[in-house]
């Protein structure tokens, strides 16, 4: 927190000294945030972007986790799909976005699919490592007590995967919101990314920063209020 305050102070001083519309002061950016909030434009565009982030995050986490766990458990499937996952990992996000827009049109499904597809391979690779690290001794214990598949999944397997799931979630959230902005900039007519494109054309750095920081603030709140408490709860047994 201290480093953030120092950064803001340094920015404020630099902006005062520069006295240029290309480097607005912290206070003017905060003022723009407030004005955009009162007008309703900022909350509206934030909500649209967050909706896209939530949809892409959910799809990529569900499919990526299922794929990663399956690859970690079945060697043949891993051998079959390993190259495809590596290709997806190395494919530039921009290429995936452009191709999906070209193939499926400038619509919501293509936009969300493009974001999800960018995150899916990293989730799969993370969860694959988790599945490979599952403790066979615990699986054998569960088998010896004839635990049902559901009980085994809930009480033996998923808790072992939880750290990998949280790692994928946190890196996923950070990656997804950045890609969503690009997707909006290239092919949507609303959302934070679209608005930033408009402000870019007007060279309005103040509003670019106002929207950017508002969104960073929201994502950070999700991290603090949702992901971190969930992770602490899931790993409370380690103390």
């Amino acid at each position, binding site marked *: 927190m201290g480093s953030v305050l120092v950064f803001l102070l340094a920015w404020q001083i630099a902006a005062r000294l520069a006295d240029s519309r290309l480097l607005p002061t912290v206070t003017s950016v905060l003022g723009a945030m407030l004005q955009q909030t009162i007008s309703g434009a900022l909350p509206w565009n934030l909500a649209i972007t967050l909706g896209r982030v939530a949809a892409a995050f959910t799809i990529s986490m569900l499919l990526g986790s299922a794929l990663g766990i399956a690859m970690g458990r079945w060697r043949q499937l891993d051998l079959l799909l390993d190259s495809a996952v590596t290709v997806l990992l190395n494919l530039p996000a921009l290429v995936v976005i452009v191709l999906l827009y070209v193939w499926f049109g400038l619509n919501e499904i293509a936009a969300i699919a493009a974001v999800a597809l960018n995150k899916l391979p990293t989730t799969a690779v993370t969860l694959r490592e988790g599945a490979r690290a599952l403790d066979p001794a615990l699986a054998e214990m569960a088998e010896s007590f004839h635990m049902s598949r559901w009980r085994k999944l809930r009480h033996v397997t998923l*808790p072992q995967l939880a750290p990998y799931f949280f790692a994928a979630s946190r890196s996923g959230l950070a990656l997804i919101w950045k890609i969503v902005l690009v997707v909006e900039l290239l092919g949507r007519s609303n959302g934070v990314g679209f608005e930033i494109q408009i402000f870019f054309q007007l060279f309005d750095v103040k509003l670019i920063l106002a929207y950017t920081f508002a969104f960073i603030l929201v994502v950070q709140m999700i991290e603090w209020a949702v992901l971190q408490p969930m992770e602490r709860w899931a790993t409370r047994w*380690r103390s």
Partner: protein
Amino acid sequence: MAELILRLHIEGKSFNEGLGELPVLGQIDIALGGREIVALVGPSGCGKTTLLRIIGGLDTDFRGTIDWCGAVVPRIGTVFQEPRLLPWRTVRQNLLLAQQTANPELADALLHALDLTPFSNVFPATLSLGMARRVAIARALAIDPQLVLLDEPFVSLDPAMAARSRELVLNAWRARPTAALLVTHDHAEAAALADRILQLGERPTRVLHEITVAQKRRGPTGSI
């Protein structure tokens, strides 16, 4: 000996690893009565754990037969060499999760009998090795087993803790007697707990000799 619950006949068991076939078990015949404790004593690596895994159904790749004396496969409570507790579940939850049919009264009674009641709601990470081993024993007994397989349950405990744990386990057994196969290196431990001791030899393992122990531990002491 009480009515037999198990007739085990093994003709052989080998592992196929890297350098070829490694015979582990030779011909072994074991009969076990309903409330009998039999100790399997032998050198390290002679196949004692493999024998328990075969009886527990965790290893089916062997030549021979397991005859449950006309009955269906009994409920078998296994105590592994390491406690193998679920670290993210409390001590009590570890017992309850092993039960097919929920029986919290039995779980609580076993925790009490094994001196674990104060630790019912803690996570296993906070337990000493001796306590964790006792939880693993309580978990095996919590399924109301007809047969308990104990794989060196007191190994690497200091002598006082091992003696205390043995005493607590015997108390639990007296209150709720069941058949048990105990793997141990320790002849004194085998003599203290078992009705019979089967001395196993080097690989491929066979029963070298059998010793019957005159036990004085019988008799009810409360119930669980």
